[in-house]
């Protein structure tokens, strides 16, 4: 019996378990998936929780509902991979041997990386919305908040779903306007990058929205620490941004398991061949989802597109063919902009988000880099697609490889 082990049963690991169990004979291939938790959270839904649009029940389901029959499931922590001996050590001492390994352990927030972040103001005036706990605490806080300085800050790149902080300020703008206290809420977004938008065309097409909605931007601000006394962010070059309520994306890192296994970089993202999706130094290890150090977005849509490539290459490897499937870094992200509208971006390693339309048989076309109602419905529909099609590894009506159809090459 040959063995495939999948580490992590989140978005990417679950998709792979379904695809592989469907394709491989049960009496030839044994498939095992390992995860420390039993609950699957629909993370894109966390964005809507602070504003009371979604509740906890809307974003959680048991992981077991999505694992296929015929896959061994182990709910336990992963200690480390011993790649030289093709085995995985689990917490509690159990050992799993593999012929092929898929690492899908994702990324998580590490507030302890920023001095002052997880201290007396944590979950009192400082929140994240990248965890269920943070999103729920912020929902409660916003119910009675009377206004003041609302700061949305990004500590470090890369972080998952790069547009989420932007969506957050757009939704906050709508939320406080509808509450009738927008004049008392000063909204600022703080980024370590040179601007909220860094790609020339997206900047031209979308930065107007921030001006229109009266949202301030502080750029090139690299947070060193949080001053709890003064209630201010302090940067390495000693600038300060004061806040009354701070929403923050803490430093994102891969799991410590990656560090213990010696397979990744300083942020514990696994060194990954950006085209074949193999681990850099071990050809029988593949990497998918947020855990990989790929130069594209850490997003569920990327994991979905990558899953098709990884599947093809794993089949190639199993059947002794060269790994001909090449991942292009394809990402497709809806951006909620408030008031029932949204924008859509579609890009890959080499092509920046371009305007035009995105063809989607039966439903689209969606407007790229345009602020429209149909794009908002796309985002809302995504939750259904996620639970019913995506996790189960079913075909979506979108190609893994980015298409130029509908896109316009523009110069400004």
């Amino acid at each position, binding site marked *: 019996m040959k063995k495939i082990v999948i580490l992590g049963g989140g978005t990417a690991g679950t998709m792979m378990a379904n695809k592989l169990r469907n394709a491989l004979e049960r009496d030839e291939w044994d498939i095992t998936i390992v995860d420390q938790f039993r609950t699957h959270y629909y993370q894109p839904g966390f964005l809507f929780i602070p504003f009371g649009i979604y509740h906890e029940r809307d974003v959680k389901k048991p992981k077991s509902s999505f694992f296929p029959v015929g896959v061994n499931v182990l709910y336990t922590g992963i200690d480390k991979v011993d790649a030289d001996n093709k085995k995985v050590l689990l917490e509690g001492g159990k050992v799993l041997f593999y012929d092929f390994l898929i690492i899908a352990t994702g990324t998580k927030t590490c507030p302890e990386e920023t001095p002052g972040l997880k201290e007396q103001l944590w979950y009192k005036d400082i929140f994240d919305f990248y965890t269920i706990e943070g999103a729920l605490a912020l929902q409660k806080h916003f119910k009675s908040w009377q206004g003041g300085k609302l700061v949305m800050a990004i500590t*470090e*790149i*890369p972080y998952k779903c*790069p*547009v989420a902080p*932007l969506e957050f300020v757009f939704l906050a703008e709508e939320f406080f306007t509808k509450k009738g206290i927008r004049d008392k809420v000063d909204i600022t977004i703080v980024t*370590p*990058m*040179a601007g909220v*938008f*860094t*790609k*020339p065309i*997206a900047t031209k097409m*979308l930065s107007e929205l921030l001006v229109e909605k009266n949202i301030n931007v502080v750029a*090139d601000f*690299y947070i*060193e620490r949080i001053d709890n006394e003064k209630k201010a962010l302090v940067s*390495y*070059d000693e600038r300060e941004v004061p806040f009354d309520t701070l929403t923050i994306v803490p*430093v994102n890192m891969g799991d410590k398991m990656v560090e213990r296994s010696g397979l990744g*970089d*300083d*942020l514990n993202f696994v060194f990954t061949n*950006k085209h074949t999706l193999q681990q850099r130094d071990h050809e029988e290890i593949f990497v998918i989802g947020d855990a990989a*150090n790929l*130069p*594209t*977005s850490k997003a569920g849509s990327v994991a979905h597109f990558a899953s098709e490539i990884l599947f093809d290459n794993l089949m190639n490897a199993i059947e002794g063919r060269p790994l001909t499937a090449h991942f292009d870094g394809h*990402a497709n*992200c809806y*951006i909620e902009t408030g008031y029932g509208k949204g924008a859509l*971006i579609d*890009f890959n390693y080499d092509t920046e*988000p371009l305007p035009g339309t995105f063809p989607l048989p039966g439903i689209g076309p969606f407007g790229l880099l345009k602020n429209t109602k149909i794009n908002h419905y796309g985002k809302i529909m995504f939750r259904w697609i996620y639970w019913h099609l995506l996790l189960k590894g079913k075909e979506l009506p979108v190609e893994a490889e980015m298409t130029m159809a509908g896109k316009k090459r523009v110069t400004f």
Partner: protein
Amino acid sequence: MGQKVIANKTIDVNDEGYMTDPSQWDKDVASALAEEIGIELSDKHFEVLDYLREKFKEGEVLTIRKVGKSGIVDIKGLYQLFPGGPLKYSSKIAGIPKPASCV
């Protein structure tokens, strides 16, 4: 996309003045690019630039934190070398793309 003549060499640059062909880079180009930003390059600067170019070649995503852990300078030190926007300025001078997010 355009070209510019600097340190007696013609280099390809994008709209924001970032080099698009890392092979056209040399130390004189770096010094001239730095001078435009108002920075005079020391050996320490060059150590940082070499580190960035090497990591870029290996396909790694570059961050201020990563440079801070490189053993060359800490983050405060990096700010002193490239005030105002350490990663965007050091990348520009190193002849590699501007650090960018997806939009």
